[in-house]
């Protein structure tokens, strides 16, 4: 059984016919070719599949796209604007906050939502906002540094 889905993805109105049992993660990757959103545990434990739904971070591996009709979805592909990296992408690249990069898309989006609510977060607030995003490579220090740097630059 397929269904017609009509979410807004990265600012575009999308229409896609997809099997009803597919999660948002699978529809984004397999039906829409947006492979920036990563496939991790599929059980809600790693955060690498994070996308923003109406601006708030959610896990696309546990979301049915029927629940997203007409709502705004942002994936990592939508972060750069007019060929310019988002300040978070810039600071992650400069500080080497990604090693294998598998966790990076989810972390960028969770951090983006944080900075929108709280433009000058404390280190502890960054830690808490990223509590649901696991990284097996970096040890987190550079990730926290990069979020701080992006916040400082945006604040200027």
């Amino acid at each position, binding site marked *: 059984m397929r269904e017609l889905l009509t979410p807004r993805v990265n600012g575009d109105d999308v229409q896609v016919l997809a099997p009803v049992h597919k*999660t948002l993660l699978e529809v984004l990757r397999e039906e829409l070719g947006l492979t920036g959103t990563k496939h991790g545990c*599929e*059980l*809600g434990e790693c*955060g690498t599949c*994070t996308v923003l*739904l109406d601006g*708030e*971070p*959610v*896990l696309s591996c*546990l*979301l*049915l796209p*029927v*629940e997203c009709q007409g709502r705004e979805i942002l994936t990592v592909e939508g972060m750069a604007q007019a060929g310019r990296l988002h300040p978070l992408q810039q600071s992650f690249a400069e500080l080497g906050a990604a090693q294998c990069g598998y966790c990076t898309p989810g972390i960028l989006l*969770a951090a983006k939502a944080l900075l929108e609510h709280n433009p000058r977060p*404390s280190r*502890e*607030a960054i*830690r*808490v*906002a990223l*509590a*649901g*995003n696991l990284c097996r490579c970096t040890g987190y220090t550079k990730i926290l540094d990069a979020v701080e740097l992006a916040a400082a630059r945006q604040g200027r």
Partner: protein
Amino acid sequence: MSLLQEHGPDAMVVAGGTDLFPNMKRRQFEPRVLVGLRGVRELGGIRGSAREGMTLGALATLTQVSLHPEILTHYPALARAADLVSTPQLRNMGTIGGNVCLDTRCNYYNQSYAWRKAIGFCMKKDGDICLVAPGSPRCVAVSSSDTAPVLWSLGARVRLVGPDGERVIPLPALYRDDGIQYLAKAPEEIVAEIALPPVDGLRATYWKLRRRGSFDFPVLGVAVALRREGEVCREARIVLGAVASQPREAVEAERLLAGERLTPELIDRVAEVAARPSKPLDNTDLVYYYRKRMTRVYVARALRELAGLPVGDWPTAMAGRNHANDEEAR
């Protein structure tokens, strides 16, 4: 409602899906029909005030509960418990209704199908014995909701809606001490809302033990609510989470508090008695005798917090968002 009735045991309701979908993926649940509640407007929203009592729609997300100004100020234990559930992403999706109906957990059950098959299925799904307590006639999987013990301690009531109409029950009457039939409601009844009584001087707190400070299910939860007149306790509720298949009230310990002043000596005695009904088994994270011992420690710390006595270092396992904000405000 009619869908639930028509499909009987083949149907399940889904709210945020943060418990149900992982369980379906591990084939712990195999419903043929899913009834999504998210489209039902009437089940959302948080209303009321500390003076007249509050109503939490079943679909209110844990994020909404943990950040609601009236709840933060007047029911801070509930805000803290909701804030300590899982991760920011999951709290944006997971609901308070789903949290009180959360499936019980066990190390032998929350595993993939292949894992469970390899070790031999247990009676909670696909098998007929209990792997934790082989002599046990029932499943002893663990109630793992963070908000349920707090709601219990606050005297919350639950409005259930079913095919035959609706009824309001005290929250404790929603539960049974059985790892499989852990809810005492009919399968086609849904939780529509949770009602909190007026605060009326009740002060409560919640302490959670988990392995990681970032996120983990509770392996022990302690909710304490006290109503005092001057120095004297008029009413006390101590409710333990994650020590049985339902939240467990430490009734004997509560009696010791009635009419007494909260001295450090009394707190130690109460904590010892409160730990008696805590009988964790070897089926969650962290060793069970440590969890048992921590019951006494956490009850004492919760009571000390309410008494305004020092509680020692704040455990990293309790570093939630609200706490981070408090630190910043200081």
